[in-house]
């Protein structure tokens, strides 16, 4: 695991940000989060990635102060948050379904944290208008939450969360309730808004695309433990084990001789110690049988997807691989055809563990 530092790239010290040290949270005696340690420097976005029930939401609730810690510490800028109630932490929390206050208009929802701080009325109005413009909802001020679409609601929730310039923004699956198209677009918007405001944010998600689209860093949580964390690119390039690789979007994980064969076919040196190899869905390409440096195999099945035809190929000593025909192959091969599979080294990761 790379060492966590508290210096910015140019070497100057930045405030410490959020640190979790050995945090354990249990419900009725059974731990939902065990010995979790993390560091999120100020101004960065961390995605906590994990399958449902992994303890990632518990982690977020523990940071927010909604769950008492059974062990460990949560600090922000080196100040211990133990005993600081939720409403004094200076954070903001945004849920999967926004949790707008249904009896308040959009403007009053967004202005809620400002009114709590007794901001003068004209200032509040100006700030609300600015926030609504930031999230692209100018003109929605007087609407009620019930009249908004899911995406609009999330934008309002984001504006509300940003209204009081939180020290830390906590996002609990902020885009999961939306359909894919909207999710992709909003993920880009979210990243843009967070970077523009320089917000420190902790995002919890089960969707690797959402994590990559929004976050600088990724922490993978499984069975209540943080199994890997670091800069997004580093984590993606070297998943720590097979389940992590699958969570990060790798389609196939191979080990032993199969891993060695695939590594060789990709032109990478076989490792002296047996390691796992994870393949991205885009890693394998179908080429004509007999192509040098490609793995020989037989097509088991061919199917159509929105991105074109894909074939399942049985490769001796490796198993079944999923591959798309290489460019320039006119007709997808049929079941039973002899083919070869070329492995793209860029679509392959050697497991760090």
């Amino acid at each position, binding site marked *: 695991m790379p060492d966590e530092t508290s210096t910015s790239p140019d070497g100057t010290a930045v405030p410490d940000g959020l640190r979790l040290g050995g945090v354990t949270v249990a419900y009725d005696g059974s731990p939902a989060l065990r010995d979790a340690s993390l560091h999120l420097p100020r101004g960065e976005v961390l995605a906590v990635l994990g399958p449902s029930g992994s303890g990632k939401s518990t982690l977020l609730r523990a940071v927010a102060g909604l769950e008492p810690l059974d062990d460990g510490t949560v600090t922000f800028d080196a100040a211990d948050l133990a005993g600081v109630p*939720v409403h004094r932490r200076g954070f903001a929390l945004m849920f999967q379904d926004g*949790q707008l*206050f*249904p*009896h308040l208009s959009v403007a009053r929802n967004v202005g*809620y*944290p400002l009114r709590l*701080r007794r901001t003068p009325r004209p200032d509040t109005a100006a700030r609300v208008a600015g926030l609504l413009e930031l999230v692209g909802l100018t003109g929605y001020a007087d609407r009620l939450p019930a009249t908004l679409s899911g995406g609009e609601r999330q934008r309002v929730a984001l504006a509300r969360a940003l209204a009081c310039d939180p020290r830390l923004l906590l996002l609990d699956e902020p885009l999961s309730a939306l359909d894919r198209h909207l999710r992709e677009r909003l993920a880009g918007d979210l990243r843009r808004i967070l970077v523009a405001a320089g917000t420190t944010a902790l995002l919890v998600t089960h969707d690797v695309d959402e994590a990559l689209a929004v976050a600088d860093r990724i922490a993978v949580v499984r069975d209540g433990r943080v199994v890997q964390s670091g800069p997004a690119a580093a984590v993606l390039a070297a998943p720590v084990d097979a389940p992590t690789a699958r969570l990060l979007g790798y389609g196939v994980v191979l080990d032993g001789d199969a891993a060695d064969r695939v590594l060789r076919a990709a032109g990478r040196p076989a490792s002296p110690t047996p390691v796992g190899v994870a393949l991205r869905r885009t890693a394998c390409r179908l080429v004509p049988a007999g192509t040098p440096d490609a793995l020989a195999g037989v097509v088991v099945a061919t199917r159509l997807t929105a991105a074109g035809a894909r074939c399942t190929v049985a490769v001796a000593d490796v198993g079944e691989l999923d591959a798309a025909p290489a460019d320039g192959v006119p007709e997808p091969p049929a079941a039973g055809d002899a083919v070869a599979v070329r492995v793209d080294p860029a679509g392959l990761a050697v497991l760090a563990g």
Partner: protein
Amino acid sequence: MRRTLGLLTLAALPLAVLAVFFVVPVGAMVARGFVVDGTFDPGAVVEVLGRDRTGRVLWFTLVSAGSGTALSVLLGLPAAYVLHRLDLPGVRIARGLLLVPFVLPTVVVGVAFRALLGDGGLLGSLGLDGSATAIVAALVFFNVAVVVRVVGGAWASLDPRAGEAAAALGASPATVLRTVTLPALRPAIASAASVVFLFCSTAFGLVLTLGGLRYATVETEIYLLTRAFDLPAAAGLSVVQIVGVVLLLVVVGRLRRSDDAAAGRAPTTPRRMQGYDVPAVAATVAVLAATALPIVGLVVAAFRVDGAWSTANFRALTGTGDDTALLVPVTEALRNSLQIAVDATWMALLLGLLVALVVTRRARTRTERTVRGVLDGVFMLPLGVSAVTLGFGLLITVARPPLALRDDPLLVPLAQALVALPLVVRTLVPVLAGIDDRQRQAAASLGASPARTLLVVDLPVAWRPVLAATGFAFAASLGEFGATAFLAQPDRPTLPVVIARLIGTPGGTNYGMATAAAVVLAATTTVVMLLVERLRVPSVGAF
């Protein structure tokens, strides 16, 4: 159109029963006042409404019901929160016990308050016996449970994350309560308040035992006027009451609908107590203690004879009291009560199930929806129409030819069933309405007949609520007094009737016997209600 017809067929039996045994008697009772010697003459009714005493009675009804409602809501809110949202030991038992006063026979509550506040009672030195304060206190004692149930149910299913989001934005617990939680609960609170107001303004046994002749509400005044055979006056007040109740029911219906529409319903698990919960928990403990006080006072009074502990009052229950105040021993009255309650329960359950089924099937057309809405409201009527009006109405209609049911052993149970019907319906409707209709459609598409669908989809969800409604109806019937007081035959009285009679007949051990009988009745209802609470049906006692 065919569906609407099917609907009406299913509704036919409850509608017929309601028409013959509720609408006709109440109508006849009202007509008595307006028709003098065969001609329509509203003069007498108008004259009654102009009387000074009528004005005072109306005023006292409004003031006592208003303050009773306000106090019930004020005291019920913290208890609703603590008993439905926090994970504390004994919360479930406390929820069950709090419901006991609500089904406690009004006569028993009256006796309990007199035992508590009267000479020699635990709080006798306060001098509140027979005061308006005592009446309001008894109304609150009676109705806090309704607030706890209705608001607590809504509170328990309120998504806590809206409050958590507000807290994270910097709202203190008090601010979260004020700006997020209470606005979300507003429909439930308004709904509870209107139901409580309904109960307070139609309270009968309680005001009669505590208020004597000094304090009368519309309900007791109708009783007194009927007894004095001033029928036009009684009818005039009945009309006023019915109009008021119908208006209130419309409001309640509106509120319930907007409550259903409110988003953010999710089952939540009770959470650990926090530091800021201390005031609410303390208030709840105080409410529980205050609720227990009259009952403790009653039990103490029942076991005291001439300043010493004794079971003499209970042993006397096998007799007929001093100066033969009663025609039958109290024990026989208890047997009558149980028998009648069994009959009333199956009737209320049968009618209630039919109504609940009719009301909850998903409507396909606007007409159908309207018909269902009206039916739902119609069967709530017995909740608010004076039981006294109903009882006396039954006496002057079905007890006479052509029906001549005066001596029919099922007349009293039927009247009680009508009074218990809204309780059954309101327990069952939320449960049946909560079943996703797609489950029924899935069952049907797999080849299940409508009857089988009912068996496979509805029954597994509904059997607990049905059992709970059974217990609730049984307890309510055991304590029913208003209508029974008119209809019960002298030689076949129920326990509440006997208790009222014992209180009303001065002499020797009669008062002691009344307290002992009240303890027996209270214990019976308590056991039934604790069994009901074990079934954990949230809609029991929620309106």
